[in-house]
Every structure is written in C-alpha cells, then in structure tokens.
C-alpha cells in the first residue's frame, strides 16, 4: 500500500471521526441519549438545567475524552518509537500508576484543596520519576526487561496508592481506589479541564518536537548520532513530554490503560513505521478510541456505571496477548 498517498486523507478522516465522536459524546448520558432523548429532556426540564447538563457535565467530559485519548495515544506512539519496544505504553511501564500515586498524595493529604495546581504537578512529578527510572534501568535492555521493570514499578505504585487511601480517615477513600486504578471521566468539571489541558498541550508540543529525531533514531542509536541527532535532547523531550501529558491525564481521570498500546499498532499498517507520521495519527486515533470507550461506558446499562479502564482493558487485554503471541512467532522465525 502506498502509505504516502493515503496519509493526509487518513488524518482528515480521523479528525472528522474525532469531531463526530465529540458531538456524539455531548448527546449521550443518563438524562437523555440521542436526538429523541435530548428532545424529551429538553421538554421535561427547565432550559437552564438542560444547558447546565450540556455545558457543565457533558462538555468537560467530551473535551477530556478527546485530550486524554490524544495524550495517551501520542505518548504510547512516542515511547514505542523511542524505546524501540512494541510493548511500551504509559500504563504498562508504570508511568500512569506513578502519576496516580502523585495525584492521590496531593488529594488525600489535603494539599490540592489548598493549592489546586498541586494535583497535576504531583502527578507529573510521579510519572517523571518513574519514566526516568525505567529509562535508566531498562532503556537499552530487551523487550522483556522493560516490561518486567514496568510490572515491578506499577505494582509498587499501585500498592502505595492503596496504602495512602487506606490510611485516610475518610471511609470513601478506600472506595475511590477503584477510580484511581481503573479510571473514569464521569462528572469531571470544567475546572478539571482548565487544570489539566494546558499541561497536556505542553506535553504534546514536547513530544511532537521529538518526532523528526525519532525517525532518525529508528535507524539505530549510532547511526542517529552520526547523522547529528542530539541524544540527550530527544531524551529530554520524550521523558518530559510523556511525564507532563500522561501525568496531567491521570491526575484527573485515574489510570486508563492500553490506549497508548493499541493505537500505535492500529495505525502502523496505515501510516508506516516512521514516527513523525505515526505520532499525529496516533494522537487522533487515541482521541477517537477514548471518546468511543467513554460513550460505551454510558450506553451499557448495567445499573451502575462501568469504569473507563474496564472497557479499555477489555479491548486492550486480548490485544496485548495477541501482540505477545506475534512477537514470539517473529522471534522464532
């Protein structure tokens, strides 16, 4: 397939799809779904309540679905390119769990009540430390080393998160473990959007700036250096970009796994392996996937709301296994 010819149309289709899903997201919810549901809701309630539901409940949710999905897709694609490891993903290598730990500390110690900015900053700090650690321990090792280091760090951070929540005197804190470990964007408000989106956008710029160098890096580290790539610059861009964007997402939505893993793999057959082309496509596809998952969460009526991470794991878990199976086959060949 001629990837070049289809690249721009593909981006256009993805953008359109994301826009469509964004609008759909505004039209789905427990108060009324679809055209008829929205109509009934409009007739039933006071117009002020109607606009409140759209403006203050569904709009932040749709915005966050888009920005968080884009951040996770982009971070996944960048990490896979930078670590040259097909299984790299913020959730798998422990970056998201570490961000959750930072956020949990900020909230349950009361720090974020005094200073709201502490929430994204602590989460970003958490993911920064872990991604730095991972890169130092396993950056140049095999696929397995990276995943093992990730498993160890995620379980450690997960355990510490549970510990902080269990230590809280608030009985609801232990119920909230589920939110932090499975993720959700239900009933988040515009203030969460303002608190997180600027950081995510900074992260996107940093990650985007690494794209060209990642192209060269895919030829191997030595070749890249000989071609004039500054390794410490890209390291800085990738680490800080991932930490900032993933940290900001997780601070307000908890850990949402697998988006960063699936999306680049879905996009590669369509756009090729070149990171500079994979990155924009993955960001858009990530946004589509998360918006889609969040719409599904609301449509599946099981009495109580499904967590976002459950849906992404239901799709991502089997996908991950399939990927490992394929890696095994290609190793044998």
């Amino acid at each position, binding site marked *: 397939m001629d990837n070049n010819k289809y690249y721009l149309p593909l981006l256009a289709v993805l953008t359109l799809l994301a826009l469509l899903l964004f609008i759909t997201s505004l039209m789905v919810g427990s108060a009324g779904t679809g055209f008829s549901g929205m109509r009934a809701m409009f007739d039933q309630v006071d117009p002020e309540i109607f606009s409140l*539901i759209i403006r203050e409940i569904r709009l932040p949710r749709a915005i966050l679905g888009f920005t968080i999905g884009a951040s996770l897709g982009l971070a996944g694609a960048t990490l896979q390119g930078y670590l040259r490891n097909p299984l790299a993903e913020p959730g798998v290598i422990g970056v998201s769990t570490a961000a959750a730990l930072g956020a949990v500390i900020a909230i349950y110690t009361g720090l974020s009540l005094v200073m709201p900015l502490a929430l994204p900053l602590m989460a970003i700090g958490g993911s920064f430390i872990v991604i730095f650690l991972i890169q130092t321990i396993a950056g140049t090792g095999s696929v397995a080393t990276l995943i093992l280091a990730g498993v160890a760090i995620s379980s450690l951070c997960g355990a510490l998160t549970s510990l902080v929540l269990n230590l809280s005197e608030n*009985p609801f*804190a232990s119920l909230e473990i589920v939110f932090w470990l499975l993720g959700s964007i239900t009933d988040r408000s515009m203030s969460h959007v303002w608190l997180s989106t600027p950081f995510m956008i900074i992260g996107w710029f940093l990650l985007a700036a690494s794209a060209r160098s990642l192209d060269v890096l895919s030829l191997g580290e030595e070749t890249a250096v000989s071609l004039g790539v500054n390794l410490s610059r890209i390291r800085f861009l990738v680490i800080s970009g991932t930490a900032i964007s993933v940290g900001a997402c997780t601070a307000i939505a908890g850990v949402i796994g697998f988006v960063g893993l699936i999306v680049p793999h879905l996009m590669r057959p369509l756009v090729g392996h070149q990171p500079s082309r994979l990155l924009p496509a993955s960001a858009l596809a990530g946004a589509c996937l998360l918006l889609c998952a969040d719409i599904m969460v609301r449509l599946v009526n099981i*009495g*109580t*709301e499904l967590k976002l991470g459950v849906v992404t794991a239901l799709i991502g878990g089997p996908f991950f296994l399939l990927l490992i199976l394929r890696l095994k086959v290609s190793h044998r060949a």
Partner: protein
Amino acid sequence: MLAAYCSSLFLLGFATTVLASDRPQRIVSINVCTDQLVALLVERERIISLSHLARDPNSSWLGPFSDGLPLNHGTAEEVIALRPDLIVTAPFGFRPTISILKNLGYTVLELPIAKSFHDISENLQLLANAVGENKETKALIRHFNEAVTVETVSSDLPLPLFVSYEASGWTMGNNSLPNNIAQRAGFETIGDRLGFSGGRKIDLEKLLIIEPELIELGNPWNDAPALVSEAMWHPALQELLKRTKLINIPDSLWLCGSPKTLEALRILQRARRDL
C-alpha cells in the same frame, strides 16, 4: 398478620431468653452498628470491648461512652484475647473472621442490617433476648416501639422528592433505612422515582433532571479530603443547590439503625413541614 408477627416474636423471646444467672458477662461488639445497641441494652460492666469506630463521631453517636473501654478492630485474634462469652456483630463483618469464631465455639450473635424501624425494633429485641432483659431495657424497647407507631405519614399528593446523595454519586434506593425514613416523613424517594433498591451510583445529570425538592449531601469530609470533597464543588451541583433546599442529617443517626434514628426522622419531618 400483626398477630402472627407478635406471636412469633413471643415464641422467639421465649426460646432464647436467658436466665439471669447465666447471662453473658463478657460481651464484645465488633461492629459499629451493634456497638450502639449493646451500649443501650447492656450494663457497662458487662461490655468488654466495642469496635474501633465507636469513638468516631462521623459514624457513631456514642461519643464519650467508649472512653476507657478497649476498642477492637474485629480480627479473630484480638477478639479471642478478650475472652468474650458473647460476640455481637452485623453481617457487614469480614466473613472468615465470623466463621473462625463460630468454629472455635464462641457464641456469635449477628444482628441483620436494619432497613426499617421495624428491623430496628426486631434487632433490639434479639439483642435483649441474648443478653437478658431487665426493667429498663424492656421500657426502652417499648418506648421505641410506641414512638415509631405514633409517627404517621402525611399523604397529600404529589409528594415532594427527597434525595440523600453523596457527592461521589452514591445514593440509596428502596429497601434501605434512609429511603424508609424519608417515605415515613412524607417524601417520594429516589428509589421510588427511579425504581431501584439498595445502593447505587447516580451521576450528576440524572440528579439534575429529577430535580429533588430536598437534598441531603452527607459529610463533605474536609478534614480528611477525598474525591468526594472535591465533587461537592462541581458547578452543576452548586447550581442545583441554588434551586433545592439542603438539609444535613449527621451520618451517625442513620448509618446504623438505632433508637437514635428517630432523630433523623424528626429532622426530615420538620423539613417536610417547612417546604
């Protein structure tokens, strides 16, 4: 129906009432709800220990009653070390602990979760039978039963809607103590409106479109912050509060069913009159 109920209660009482001589003397409660009933019906000398939540003002109204009493965390080891001859608990407890205690031959009284005033009255009687009744406890139970029957429902339709909503989204539907109390006070409940029983998470937009006339938001937990505390500040919830009357019922009054739960009913009845 009522007669059958009374006679079964009588038979139950007859079968399990203990003689004064072999009344349990070392009573341990390992649940915050049973703590309260034990404190009401048992002389302090016979109470060896209460649960650690007995001293938590958010969950229990016992207050200084537990001062000087050792508090337990409901694990089998510490309960056994207290050498109890009666362990009182509710079915919230950690099941393996209760089965270990039973297997070791301890007498464990499990009082069901009270979902109505009728359940509270039954629990009081079950506990009284197990620990032995005296004049005071008989009077206490009689007073409670009288108070409960006196409270009547005002039934002018349509009833205003009352919702008790934790900002994290948790609310109780039918077949729960809060909804039963609200129905008695003359409210339509969220369980009636949406047709569900037990606890459930309801998102904010659902809450906004059912437009409750009276709302109770639970404890904001600002001293031990969590997502719940933050959710209170959601602009949509704040907007709803401008249109809806807000009351506060301390959790300790109706988290567990006890004679104190009557106070929750009175708060709601007053709010109903003031609407």
